[in-house]
């Protein structure tokens, strides 16, 4: 599978946030999107997820434009936004049940990807009583319903402890090796290690960037 993002643009009132966002990715790749605060990283992800409409551009998946085909996009894309996209008053099982049918859910919990994410450990815990790491893993678990080949993640490891970050990172590596495409919006150098290619959003455009591990260089490039 190949995805091509072509010339995506977005304007909020008079402010042009994105002017020309273009990049592509193939199965098993992870693309990192970095940039200064307010440069349009999260806007880009919400456009690709179908939450917001782009003013122009295409999101092609094997030649089909997902921005105009809601039905295809719903199946092809999993989205994990920055916040907590969960029902606080319900437990992990109920939240998963919203996205999975019962048989698939049982299967995934018994040795499937939800088991790999360690969700079994807190299946009956109410979201309002979960730690940040549990919530993030559960959010990813919800986004993975119907096995989407493209996973969009907005700062998935922010404000998590190292052990939790490692757990999520391990899972995302596994997702890649199974042929999934990851698009990752991040500020975290640990997350950048996952990425095969990185792009900086500058003046609304994507500029390719090779992360060498030098944080100072990254700061210079972003600012």
């Amino acid at each position, binding site marked *: 599978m190949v995805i091509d993002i072509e010339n995506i643009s977005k304007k909020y009132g008079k402010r042009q946030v994105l002017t020309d966002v273009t990049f592509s990715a193939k199965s098993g790749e992870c693309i990192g999107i970095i940039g200064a605060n307010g440069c349009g990283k999260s806007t880009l992800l919400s456009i690709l997820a179908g939450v917001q409409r782009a003013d122009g551009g295409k999101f092609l998946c094997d030649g089909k434009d997902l921005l105009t085909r809601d039905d295809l996009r719903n199946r092809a894309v999993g989205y994990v*936004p920055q916040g907590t996209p969960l029902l606080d008053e319900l437990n992990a099982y109920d939240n998963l049940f919203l996205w999975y049918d019962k048989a698939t859910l049982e299967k995934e919990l018994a040795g499937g990807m939800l088991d790999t994410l360690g969700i079994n450990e807190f299946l009956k815990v109410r979201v309002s009583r979960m730690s940040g790491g549990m919530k993030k893993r559960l959010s990813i678990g919800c986004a993975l319903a119907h096995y989407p080949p493209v996973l969009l993640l907005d700062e998935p490891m922010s404000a998590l402890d190292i052990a939790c970050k490692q757990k999520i990172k391990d899972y995302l590596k596994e997702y890649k090796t199974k042929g999934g495409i990851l698009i990752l919006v991040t500020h975290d150098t640990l997350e950048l290690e996952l990425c095969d290619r990185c792009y900086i959003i500058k003046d609304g455009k994507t500029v390719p960037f090779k992360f060498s591990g030098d944080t100072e260089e990254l700061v210079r490039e972003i600012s």
Partner: protein
Amino acid sequence: MKYYKLHLKKTFRVLPVLLTVAAVLLSVLLVIFVKTRDMSREENENRFTIGVVGDTGGSFFQFGFEMIKSVDPSRFTIEPILMDEETAKKKLLTSEIKAYFVIPKGFMRAANYGEIIPIRYYSTPSAVDVSTIIKDEITKIVETVLRESQKGVFGLGYLLDDYGYEDISEEQMDAFNIEYIDLIVSRNDMVKTETAGITSGLGLFEYLAVGISVYLILIMIIPLVCSNAGRDRSFFAVMKSKGVSAFRQVFAENAALFTALIFAVFVLAGLPVAASALFDIAGSGGLKISAAAIVFGVIPVLILASSFAYFMFELFGNIISAVTGYFFITTGMCYISGCIYPLYAMPSALRKIAYFTPTGEARMLISSFLLEESPTVPFLAVMLFSALFFALSVFVRNRCLKRGGA
């Protein structure tokens, strides 16, 4: 459907809190009802002060007042007080008098010639029962006077016979009787009753029961919707990315809220009914609600309450501002629409505003069933307000999604 079920489950988690809040509010309501009933009973045992306004100069009136004052004091006493109409209006609205009569100019002169200029009778909705009693009593007085007068007509016939006018007495008696019957029949138009205020027909008990019930529903919904305030909006973004539009999201959430509310109301409604049956709390003339009133009156009001509360809690950013804001807005709206204070005692400008408030329409819809009036207009208004609040909620959700769920 799955989202509706899960939302319902989420809403039912706060049911114990809701039941506690509702039980406290219901206790307050029952105390008000009991006090109202006691006040009504006390009123029935007390003197009724009635204002008399207009052309009361004739000595015949003074005789009439004395007669009314002497009517069966063991049951109740009517005390007529002469005053001008402005004073009477003020005293009526402050409940210093129960009603007032306006005797039109030239009434007695017209009456002497067998013509009727109707007396106008003004009361408040709370004094409707009193009005009926007074009218019954006046009818009894008039009946007695007329019966005695007719005896006089027959006496006159005997007198004609005794004085040797047998040949004309029968003809004269017929003429007398026809004149007399004409006079009695036309006396039916003698009194015209008008009720002050815009809620004509309901007694104080029913009026407060309906108004406070609307307020109670709007207040007890708070525990059900308070979790909506300041929610993490990224959940809506994920729903949208999976093809669940803002309309479908809001519809499912509203439907879940409505289901929980209807469950809570009908469970709780059983309590006062049972209490009423056991302890005669509502009194013999208490609330009687038909199945039609529940389907076309109570259920639309619950739809309105859930869509209004949902919208308000969707609008506010955090739980504290949502609860306080909702409480004050709801209380203010219920006050100006006459739900917690009788509307007829308010300035006329406020009475007009009451027609355009959702709570005012809700109160009038339920009242229309108790009064057996057509509920069409308030029903349509309630449904229109519900649709408006629903549309506004969808608008707010859409606006949130256009910002990416932030």
